């Protein structure tokens, strides 16, 4: 029973972070039609920035805010420098077919991932370093028993909940959010009705960058920080996004929690080494049973 409770709690806390990663992927997919494989590279980079600030004697919260801001900045810079020129370049013969047009941005994002990881290795040494948590990582004690639930888990879930509420309010209540939803629905029509689609694209990259930075900040306290630490989070986040539906933010959150539970149960009841196989199994199952995801719309892709 204890194992079961620990698995549930750790699954919730991990799942919240994976939901954030998946949300970042979904935002860029809706906004720009690209699956951003460099996303956790960006998060790794901004976490290093925060870690350097904290190591130099600044408080955790300064590092926290700087990481979020620089995550947004990095996302928009990448869009303006790499992805925008790419999407405006549809006339060459190589990019004339749908399949290559889908493949080329993926290759570009892998290139970005490589650049960010190599840069982080050059700037911040290759050795692993820890990253502080803002709250205690020991379990609460209730009536003398140590519960498998820590103050840090509460912090994680609060952070993720606030982010989810803020993004959904942004999309539902603001003009810019409406413009972004319109762009996601149909770019041509949105352009014709006066929406600056380039701007909304960059904005979705910025929001996704900030969200994944937050995910990076929340993931690293439980592991060490190195240029490759967050790669696994990307695989999990992608699987979560596919399980929930690549074009549905709510689905992404749902998928994140499902993946969190699966991984935590595999870790507690089996060996941690099987996690990769479990991810692959979940991904294949979801692609076979429900290829468009739990909450995704059917039109996204034909099977």
């Amino acid at each position, binding site marked *: 029973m204890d194992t079961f409770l620990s698995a549930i709690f750790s699954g919730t806390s991990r799942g919240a972070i994976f939901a954030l990663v998946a949300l970042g992927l979904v935002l860029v997919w809706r906004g720009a039609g690209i*699956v951003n494989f460099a996303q956790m590279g960006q998060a790794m980079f901004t976490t290093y920035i925060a870690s350097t600030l904290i190591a130099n004697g600044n408080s955790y919260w300064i590092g926290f805010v700087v990481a979020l801001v620089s995550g947004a900045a990095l996302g928009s810079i990448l869009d303006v420098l790499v992805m925008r020129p790419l999407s405006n370049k549809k006339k060459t013969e190589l990019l004339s077919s749908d399949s290559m047009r889908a493949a080329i941005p993926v290759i570009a994002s892998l290139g970005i991932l490589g650049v960010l990881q190599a840069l982080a290795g050059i700037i911040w040494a290759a050795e692993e370093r820890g990253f502080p948590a803002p709250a205690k990582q020991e379990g609460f004690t209730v009536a003398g028993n140590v519960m498998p639930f820590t103050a840090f888990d509460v912090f994680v879930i609060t952070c993720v909940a606030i982010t989810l509420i803020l993004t959904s309010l942004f999309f539902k209540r603001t003009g810019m959010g409406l413009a972004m939803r319109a762009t996601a629905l149909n770019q041509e029509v949105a352009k014709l009705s006066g929406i600056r689609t380039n701007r909304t694209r960059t904005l979705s990259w910025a929001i996704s960058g900030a969200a994944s930075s937050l995910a990076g900040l929340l993931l690293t306290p439980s592991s060490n920080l190195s240029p490759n630490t967050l790669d696994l989070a990307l695989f999990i986040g992608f699987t979560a996004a596919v399980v929930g539906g690549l074009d549905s933010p709510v689905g992404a959150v749902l998928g994140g929690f499902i993946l969190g539970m699966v991984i935590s149960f595999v870790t507690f009841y089996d060996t941690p080494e099987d996690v990769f196989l479990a991810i692959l199994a979940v991904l294949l199952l979801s*692609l076979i049973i429900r290829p468009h995801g739990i909450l995704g719309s059917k039109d996204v892709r034909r099977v």
Partner: protein
Amino acid sequence: MCVVSKLKAHSTARKSLIRTLIFVIVILFLGSRFDAYNQGQLSVVLILFIGVLSVTILTGISGQLSLGQGALMAVGGYCTALLMTNYKLSLWIAIPVSIIGAAIAGLLLGVAAARLSGPYLAGTTLVVALAIPTLANRFFSVFKGDEGLPVDVGYSPKWFSNTFGEPTYEQWQLYVALPFAAIALFFASNILLSRSGRMWRSIRDHESAASLCGVNFSRQKIFVFVVSASFAGLSGALYGLRGLVGPSVYPVSLSLTLLTAAVLGGIRSISGAFIGTIIIVFLPDWIDLVIDNFELSEQVSNYMPALISSVLLILTVVINPAGVAGTKLHKHK
């Protein structure tokens, strides 16, 4: 009509044969001029060239982006290693058998992948590339976990040494890789000029138009996967024969390296695949040449090749997506 098509078939095969012969002569010439280290590098070029060809065929010709070629290479490598250590087979028998093994793995992957497209396919194959090497730990008794299975090309047989003189270990590595690379080149060049190559290009360019012309595109997609997996398996088998077959030899980054090489050289052409492989393999050496003039710490020189190749990848994709060998493509719109 019949005569014309026969002539054409002749010239296709002859074209590929001439290409292959020139390739073999150039490699033998270079191999005789290089020192031991560069001979080793040259055989890595030949080995990875086969792997890059698998990416060129799959992504460049049929338009399916796969990031899981490293997993197929691992299948080829483990098949060869198991056959050589458990059954004491010679590598000339073990490698063809493991190509069949990799082709079967490619068939399974292809059946799953033919339903997917674009980023779905890329992400799924990426997860495959991550998950397959962990099987080595899951079935420890067979695959020996992280330690892996030590195998190598061994030494040249008697008759070879008697006819051509005793080759060094590096030379022998090169001589083992060369015939396989030549066969792969001939096969790839032929199949791209043939009916199958045209069908694959047509499904890349327009699926509906291709199927209206009578191309059964889901069957062809699976077929491309099988062909590409055979190339990857061959490359993986030779790659493992450099000393060790283990999960650390076939990491996810290997798949990305293959893709980088294919894109840098020119994702649609065979010569591009070769140019890209040369760039990727020799880049660290070239960078060392330049860096030696500056006083830089070790960590900078460790990450420099990765940085430069990734920057080159982004620049290629943004400025000249057709790659080094395919600049011609730009002219017609």
